[in-house]
């Protein structure tokens, strides 16, 4: 695993998130569930806790956009880049953006499983950079895994616990 420079991390364990808009590829309930489960992947192994808010600015703002979407890092159309997220910090820090030109799915291997992409992006939101371990969630290349049986790989557990410690409960 690797972290951003100076072990950049949140200096609090209670974080908020907000879903700003939705992809038409999936139902609202499916998006909500995918995002929530992606955050819980990290909460399970750390003291971090996530609360959803519906207005105002959250620590982690989640949105779908295509091409230029307001952050000077335009998406590239179908395929290529699927999503990106910013390291912990104020403002745009922690925010996760998903490329609307991709086809996101709830669990099918036809398209990209939003849960898997989001779990990876939230790793960045929490302070993890890319891993060179091909089996790690934080490996930069997408590979399908069954979301119903997903277990956070050891490399990612070690990475996130190096920043926040383990789950006290």
């Amino acid at each position, binding site marked *: 695993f*690797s972290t*951003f*420079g100076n072990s*950049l991390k949140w200096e609090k364990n209670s974080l908020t998130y907000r879903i700003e808009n939705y992809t038409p590829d999936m139902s609202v309930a499916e998006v909500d569930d995918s995002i929530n489960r992606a955050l819980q992947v990290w909460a399970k192994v750390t003291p971090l806790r996530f609360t959803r808010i519906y207005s105002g600015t959250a620590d982690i703002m989640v949105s779908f956009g295509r091409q230029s979407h307001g952050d000077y*890092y335009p*998406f590239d159309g179908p*395929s*290529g*880049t*699927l*999503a*990106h*997220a*910013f*390291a912990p910090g104020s403002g745009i820090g922690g925010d996760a953006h998903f*490329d609307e030109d*991709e086809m996101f799915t709830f669990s099918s291997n036809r398209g*990209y499983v939003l849960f898997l*992409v989001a779990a*990876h*992006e939230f790793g*960045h939101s929490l302070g993890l*950079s*890319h891993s*060179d371990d*091909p089996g790690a969630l934080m490996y*930069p*290349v*997408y590979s399908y895994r069954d979301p119903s049986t997903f277990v956070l790989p050891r490399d990612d557990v070690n990475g996130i616990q190096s920043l926040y410690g383990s789950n006290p409960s």
Partner: protein
Amino acid sequence: VPVSEVTVQDESFAENYLKNFFNMTEQKGPSTRRGISPLSKKLSEMQRFFGLHITGALDGETLEMMKKPRCGVPDGKIAR
């Protein structure tokens, strides 16, 4: 003579990829004419990261990896 499997378009694609994800800067001036080129250095860095055969040259295996769907955060770097 081996037939090249890499097109001019592939080279341009690879340069953009390395600029985006491996912090490759523009090649300028005569200093790039000597020694190992920045492109070759960055290709080696990328091949090492992904566990590919390290050649420093753009080959089919490297190009295939570059074209896989991926996250848009530069590897090992903070997007400033």
